[in-house]
């Protein structure tokens, strides 16, 4: 980023987890370095888009809420993704649209109302030194984020932003069709994988007809689903590369959907992989929520993904 960086926000109170995320860390997975990036690509992309940032700009992923930020200057911002009860100086802050904040005002996030992860974008983007080509913050690997060391935000931390981000401009808002109700049971599109034939017929029926519950063992590495026990004739494989959204089934028969911070290689058989948008949708589910899996064709998944990305192509 050649743009000069200036102070944007000071963290007044830290929440459970707030991480800077650009599109992700690519080209280093062969070294065991994970992808990172926003767990919900849809919310992250909209937050950036609403403040005029191009694809890939760094936004803040806030999980659960609990964080309070003080504006260090006048800024244009947008919050998309989850509704975590955001307020500006105590007044409810509208989500899914660009809003202005003045120097000294407090932006606070309380708790999940609809969804799990909110994305805060500022015009000009958040600014930090890239590590291995990316700002994506991966706590487990100690890479990226505001300090380059993979730390979640803590009280007193300073978030820098690209200069010139304070310009006002027209209010932009996302159409209602783009604002998901994350409380609804999600139908997660899954591309069947090579080992699907190894599962028993009964297990395949269960996989796509049962209602799955999001377990509390869920984080940016993966989300465990609980439900009927799936049986696969293949118990384990020689470890191999794992893609985003891969649905692996360990011997206990309870699937784990692998998200952005997953290990790069692994050895459990897989039902297949969620599409990028389905993985994003799952990342907004709270423990205890119900989801369904629905097989989808590659053609259909690609068409959906192209339509999604077209919104953000080349528009600033």
């Amino acid at each position: 980023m050649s743009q000069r960086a200036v102070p944007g926000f000071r963290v007044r109170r830290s929440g459970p987890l707030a991480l800077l995320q650009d599109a992700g860390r690519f080209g280093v997975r062969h070294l065991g370095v994970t992808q990172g990036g926003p767990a919900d690509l849809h919310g992250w992309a909209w937050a950036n888009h609403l403040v005029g940032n191009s694809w890939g700009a760094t936004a803040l992923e806030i999980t659960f809420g609990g964080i309070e930020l003080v504006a260090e200057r006048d800024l244009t911002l947008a919050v998309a993704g989850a509704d975590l009860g955001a307020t500006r100086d105590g007044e409810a802050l509208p989500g899914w649209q660009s809003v202005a904040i003045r120097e000294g005002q407090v932006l606070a996030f309380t708790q999940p109302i609809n969804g799990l992860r909110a994305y805060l974008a500022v015009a000009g983007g958040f600014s930090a030194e890239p590590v291995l080509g990316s700002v994506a913050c991966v706590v487990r690997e100690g890479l990226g984020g505001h300090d380059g060391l993979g730390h979640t935000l803590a009280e007193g931390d300073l978030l820098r932003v690209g200069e010139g981000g304070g310009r006002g401009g027209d209010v932009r808002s996302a159409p209602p069709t783009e604002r998901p109700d994350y409380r609804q049971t999600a139908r997660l599109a899954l591309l069947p994988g090579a080992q699907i034939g190894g599962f028993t017929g009964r297990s395949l029926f269960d996989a796509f007809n049962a209602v799955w519950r999001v377990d509390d063992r869920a984080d940016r590495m993966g989300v465990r689903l609980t439900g009927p026990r799936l049986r696969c004739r293949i118990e384990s494989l020689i470890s191999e590369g794992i893609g985003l959204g891969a649905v692996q089934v360990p011997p206990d028969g309870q699937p784990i959907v692998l998200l952005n911070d997953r290990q790069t290689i692994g050895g459990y058989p897989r039902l297949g992989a969620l599409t990028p948008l389905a993985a994003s949708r799952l990342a907004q589910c709270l423990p205890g929520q119900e989801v369904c899996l629905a097989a989808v064709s590659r053609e259909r998944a690609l068409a959906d993904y192209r339509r999604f990305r077209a919104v953000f192509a080349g528009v600033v």
Partner: protein
Amino acid sequence: MTGRVTAGLPRLEAAGLDAWMVRLFATIDEANLPWLTALSRDCEAAFGEALVDLVPSYTTLLVVFDPLKLDPELARRRLEAVLAGLTPDADAMDGEIRELPTWYDTSVGPELGRLAERAGMSVAEVIGCHSEALYRVFALGFAPGFAFMGLLDERLECPRLDTPRQRVPLGSVAVAGRQTAAYPAVSPGGWNLIGRTAARLFDREREGFSLLRLGDRVRFVPVDRATFEAQGGDTTPMGEEAGR
């Protein structure tokens, strides 16, 4: 692709919207490496700008691409063409020889005794056996710079711990099954710990970041405590918050 052929291989497998899994072999073998290296190189040339990541492992290569730049069906056809013309990379077996100075001691390698007991050897013999071999890097994964190396002498073969440790200290040298590795960072882990190295396995300031690369050959060189400390090693015994 000609040479080592297993029925039905090589095979292209669906691995999500943005990836194909190229399955080349059915078993772990050093002789897989020249093929995997050649395949990685040819994929880089064939995919160009559309390539996102290549993740080689023991028998496979995951090819990740941008589906907006290259249609998945077209990507599949390119991979088929690459496989049809694939010849092994003769240089792959000459990977660098890396030495990892290792302090073998029960204070930092609590499973030395377990290995010795299983093998019917003394601890000194276990250390000799582990450090005499030249290991090959078969895969990187689990964590940045974590190299899966093999094959371990079968007398030292030992299952993973029943309960993984929450916190394995930086530089821990470990074995599991017929593999060995060194932990590049503090992390959870279920392998048997036998020593510690002060080598910097992953360094963001280093060209290429990771000390060990696919195909490298690695020797663990026994050093004494004083040498290990002089190299910057942390001698804090296990269970006392080592590796901070």
